[in-house]
């Protein structure tokens, strides 16, 4: 294998599992792409990078950062080289996610109804009741078709030996799917003909499947139910995603102030009077959904919406109260749930997780802080996280003190050496750490996972944190058909 200038020192910088290289050889799935890249000049590649930026900017695929009273449009960094997943890898991931979601959905139904799993002592009762996302309002309420998780964005990572692990189950309002769709559109423009030549499976069905599932949930038996997407509004960082999905599904994009509840029915205010709403795909968190039930100061939600929901007059997607199943402390029990409900061995592994309110586990974590990542059980977006290997002594001490104050708030996991993939950086390919978030859709007809997903990448050298708030970017994600 001859190394060209593009690949200079790429291999030397890889540590652990690399998605493109194995034992000095390029993996089969990357050959075609790498060939093409090597035939291009640096100028051409720079031009493509520039074109990608321009397309994101002019299409308004941006989020607004407000500083000194003025909005500045930022794009979510995009790396032009796709991340490639083989058919067999995908097959494994897909089966694993399907199994996991099935169990999580059963858990939600159980925990809000008979609570067999608590009575049998498989999941400790206190860990459920101490979770702030466990909603008493959902107890004993039969959700339509017994589906709680309609949309899931499950985060996967790979260890240094290439094993896939589940990092997080995002079962509330997972975001990022518009980037799965837009990144693909951009790649089509950047590298003409490359996608068909590689036999890449399409992701464009996503909005159609979601729409079909939403229609099926309508409580009213009508040919064309009114479906809305509820957004917190234009200041939300995922607003672009909300408009994209509403447009692609042809449903109304509404804000809380567009809706009103009358006699336990939800209506939207139109130029021709009130129109009844049947299904709400909400991108507003539980606690803001209904000021009468949750946070009274919320203006993002709709007063009375929970009563309409409980009366069965409107379907809400995802169901309220899902947070109890993707809490980071409960995460540790998901393999046990799979065994309990399905009588199967988990296909996809959990990252080992230490519960810090358990004295022995806490002691073990405290004596190994340098090899641990400590997370808040209800945190997200990479905030409130301690990476033991790069933290200072003071930071570690501060975390220790915080943990002792309220150990239920934290979990610890060993640091995983995430797999790397090639990124184009200033005329060179550089290995950068990545994760993978495929999107699963559950409807009355079962679970469908669109072949693809969002690959997030830690663009900073050596960084293991892929969150966009921490300097992460994204890649187009290819799943090969064969």
């Amino acid at each position, binding site marked *: 294998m001859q190394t060209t200038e593009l690949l200079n020192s790429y291999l030397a910088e890889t540590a652990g599992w690399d998605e493109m290289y194995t034992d000095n050889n390029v993996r089969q799935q990357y050959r075609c792409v790498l060939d093409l890249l090597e035939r291009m000049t640096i100028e051409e590649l720079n031009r493509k990078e520039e074109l990608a930026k321009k397309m994101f900017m*002019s299409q*308004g695929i941006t989020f607004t950062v407000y500083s000194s009273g003025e909005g500045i449009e930022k794009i979510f960094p995009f790396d032009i080289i796709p991340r490639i997943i083989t058919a067999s890898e995908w097959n494994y991931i897909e089966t694993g996610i399907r199994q996991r979601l099935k169990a999580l959905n059963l858990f939600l139904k159980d925990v809000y109804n008979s609570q067999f799993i608590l009575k049998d002592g498989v999941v400790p009762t206190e860990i459920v009741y101490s979770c702030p996302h466990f909603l008493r309002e959902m107890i004993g309420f039969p959700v339509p078709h017994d589906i709680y998780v309609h949309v899931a964005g499950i985060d996967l990572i790979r260890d240094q030996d290439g094993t896939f692990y589940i990092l997080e189950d995002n079962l509330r309002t997972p975001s990022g799917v518009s980037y799965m769709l837009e990144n693909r559109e951009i790649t089509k423009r950047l590298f003409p003909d490359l996608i068909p030549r590689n036999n890449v499976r399409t992701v464009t069905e996503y909005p159609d499947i979601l729409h079909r599932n939403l229609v099926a949930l309508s409580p009213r038996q009508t040919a064309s139910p009114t479906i809305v997407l509820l957004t917190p509004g*234009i200041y939300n960082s995922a607003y672009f995603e909300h408009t994209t999905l509403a447009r692609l599904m042809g449903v*109304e994009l509404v804000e809380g102030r*567009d809706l009103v509840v009358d006699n336990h029915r939800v209506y939207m*205010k139109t130029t*021709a009077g009130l129109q009844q709403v049947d299904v709400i795909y909400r991108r507003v968190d539980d606690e803001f959904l209904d000021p009468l039930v949750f946070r009274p100061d919320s203006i993002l939600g709709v007063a009375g919406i929970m009563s309409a929901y409980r009366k069965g007059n409107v379907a809400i997607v995802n169901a309220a109260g899902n947070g109890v199943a993707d809490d980071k402390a409960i995460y540790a029990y998901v393999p046990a749930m799979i065994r309990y409900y399905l009588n199967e061995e988990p296909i996809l592994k959990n990252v080992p997780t230490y519960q810090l309110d358990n004295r022995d586990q806490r002691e073990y974590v405290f004596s190994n802080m340098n090899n641990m990542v400590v997370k808040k059980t209800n945190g997200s977006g990479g905030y409130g996280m301690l990476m033991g290997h790069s933290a200072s002594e003071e930071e570690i001490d501060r975390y220790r003190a915080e943990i002792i104050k309220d150990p239920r708030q934290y979990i610890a996991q060993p640091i995983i050496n995430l797999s790397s993939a090639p990124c184009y950086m200033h005329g060179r390919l550089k290995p950068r750490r990545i994760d993978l978030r495929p999107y699963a859709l559950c409807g009355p007809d079962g679970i469908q996972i669109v072949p693809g997903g969002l690959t997030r990448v830690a663009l900073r050298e050596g960084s293991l944190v892929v969150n966009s708030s921490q300097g992460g970017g994204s890649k187009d994600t290819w799943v090969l058909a064969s």
Partner: protein
Amino acid sequence: MLSRVADSLYWMSRYMERTDGILRMLRINYASSQDDIQDFSWRPVLRIFSYLDDEQAAAISHKSRAVLQYMVTDRENANSVLNIVTHARENARSVQDHITKELWQCLNEFYHTVRDGNLIRGLHEEDPVSILDVLIRQGLLYYGVTDVTMARGEGYAFINIGKFLERGVQSADILDIKFSDLDITRMDTTYWKYLLLSISGYELYLKTYRSGFDARNVLELVVLNEDFPRSVLYSVKQLQKYFERLKTDRNKEGYQKLDFLIGRFQSRIKYSTVDSILQQGIHGFLNGVRQDLYEMGNAFNQHYFAYT
């Protein structure tokens, strides 16, 4: 259609119409300032399109570059092109699922253009006309994209209602201020010529009237000419045309109220003559036009856009 969406489309359109009006006015007045042997003043423009008081306006009324800076890029000026294009884009952004992707991209690009530091520097250092032309062309692109890509539904009706209501208000404002500035019987060719150029009515005027420039004719063209796309009469006729498309079995009360207001206003303009306007007093007449248009705006607000 959601009331909030109708409201946003209506305002997006009003802001874009205002942008177009301001840019044309600036372009022609700048040209006039380069041509005028008399002491050229920006005061009328500032009175039409800004909230400056007399003293503040007087301070910059003889400095073209300062006026351009104030009217195009000043963040403190609520009516600067930068600010109203930003408002138009914000409105468009919140209704992206109701406008075409092309229209959204067009507005988004316009927004990035007015914020482009290099381009704006040209306003101060190079030929401002070429910069204003770039901006005017972006605005024309907006009109074209709207026309070519937007479905002819309710949304399109609200876009046009906003557009023609804003245009009517603008034409009344422009006339009012231009006529208040001087004795109507005075003949001043350059004065009327530049006024007509700034609202793209110069050529039509030449074809309609053979006797040179006359205040009465200008008044007739800008208020009563049915073929002149910026006249008050044309604007209200278009307004009525798009309003009628909103007729449904629902919201009868709102429809009747607006139908009455628009119909009454249209008759009032249609059955006016230059003589009747002069008899009533130009200022009084134009003020009445403005009040009627504002009343319609309020009625739309109450009957179609109320969502809070």
